[in-house]
């Protein structure tokens, strides 16, 4: 009896492993055979990837994903990912492609194949009341500025620009503190601040007035060793920059055109 149970367990385990094993060969062929492209996107990062009232995932990155599916002539399936699982999903073969606001970093390049060139970028900025009139980073001197505990730019804001950092655990606490006036501004990723500022009913009196610093590029990624798919994606990205597709999507989603997107368009438009 015991042996039988053991046998069954092993068999079930094996079956599960086989089913979950990533399709090795060449993913473009697999995707075409399957008829769907599975893309990992963010579902909580307005306007880059978020849910509309009906629950469908929309935004800038889902539209880019749709472009890829159209190019391959297959249907698009989107899987919501978060920062802590996006690379694992890709490695395990749960998704074929990841377009999920990921900053391009050398250590990440060892785990997944980040496709060149970069498709987007974000940096550090400060959201503050319009009345505060913050225009340069030096304006922060001596003022209480909210931050997130553990963010790498807190030290810089404090050491180089003389702000008094008041750091909380999560964004919910920071937004409450900002509303009640415990700090003059909030230093954070500019892309997330842009998203927050879109809620004009709540944040109509606030702005992001400083020039963005520490701009870091975002990379979309495929599995390591997917040479053919990576080449195709690289061409797609160049195409997006060339045609001004990124700029167009920014405008469509209410984001002011970012310097990075403009520069990339300038670089590729005549190629």
């Amino acid at each position, binding site marked *: 009896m015991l042996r039988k149970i053991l046998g069954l367990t092993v068999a079930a385990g094996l079956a599960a492993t086989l089913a979950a094993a990533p399709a090795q060969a060449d993913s473009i062929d697999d995707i075409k055979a399957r008829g769907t492209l599975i893309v990992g996107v963010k579902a909580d990062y307005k306007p880059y990837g978020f849910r509309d009232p009906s629950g469908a995932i929309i935004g800038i990155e889902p539209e880019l994903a749709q472009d890829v599916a159209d190019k391959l002539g297959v249907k698009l399936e989107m899987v919501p990912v978060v920062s802590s699982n996006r690379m694992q999903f890709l490695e395990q073969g749960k998704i074929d492609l990841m377009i999920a606001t990921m900053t391009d970093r050398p250590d990440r390049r060892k785990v997944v194949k980040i496709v060149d060139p970069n498709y987007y970028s974000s940096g550090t900025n400060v959201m503050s*009341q319009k*009345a*505060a009139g913050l225009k340069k980073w030096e304006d922060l001197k001596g*003022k209480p500025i909210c931050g997130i*505990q*553990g*963010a*790498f730019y*807190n*030290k810089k804001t*404090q*050491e180089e620009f003389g702000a008094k*950092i*008041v*750091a*909380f*655990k999560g964004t919910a*606490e920071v937004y*409450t*503190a900002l509303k*009640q*006036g*415990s700090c*003059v501004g909030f230093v954070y990723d500019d892309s997330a601040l842009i998203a927050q500022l879109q809620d004009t009913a709540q944040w109509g009196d606030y702005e992001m007035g400083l020039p963005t610093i520490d701009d870091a590029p975002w990379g979309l990624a495929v599995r390591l060793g997917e040479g053919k798919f990576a080449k195709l994606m690289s061409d797609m990205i160049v195409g997006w920059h060339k045609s001004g597709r990124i700029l167009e999507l920014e405008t469509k989603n209410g984001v002011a055109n970012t310097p990075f997107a403009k520069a990339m368009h300038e670089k590729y438009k005549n190629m």
Partner: protein
Amino acid sequence: MEAFFVWFQWLYDETGINLTYFYDSFDRGRMIGGFFTTIWLSLVCLFFSTIIGIIGAWLQGSRLVWTRRFVQGYIQFFRNTPPLVQMYFFFFALGNLLPRVKNEFGFMEPMLGNFTWAAISLSFFAGAFNVEIFRSGIEAVPESTREAAEALGYNRLQSYIYVVLPLAFRVCLPALNNNLVNLVKTTTLAYAIAVPELLYVSNQIWSDSVNVPEMMVTLLILYVALVGLLVWAMHRWERAIRVPGYGI
């Protein structure tokens, strides 16, 4: 002094033990600031929680039923809720209801800052325990002693101040020590509302330099030293005010 700091840079290069607050002047400034914020916050809370304890214990013996009920309600509220929740409640909920004042930059900010709220919430939290601790001491004072004071013409307040409290104090000092030691350690919760005390600055430093183990060890050593100092002082005091023959 400079050579001393440089040695820690060398220690990092050679062994990987990264004590940034020795060789990096910015981190050193933060660390010293955090240390003194912790001490200051502890002293403020020790003082006010003891005062709350003494007054609360006196009011508990009041003849007015509503005064007794009020003290009881206060104790129940602060003893039965987690201090972290109280801190969040004070800072984010009550802080929002207070009138705002203009600060030096011309912005409206809440009347009380995060340090003040931390001090208030921790004093009330530890004070609730102190009331019960003082009550235990008061109840240990024999009825006959109190009657003797009454016979000498002391009224209730006078007998509390001159006879009951001094005796009660000696009885409850060990329990009070325990609670005050706990209070010093609980000041780390002020980290949640961004009071720049030791844990908060350590967290900032280890986020920047990724030297978590070193900062953890530093924190433990500093708290052992701080609490050790408090316990030593309290024991000395306990010995100094001992009444020979009173059995304590």
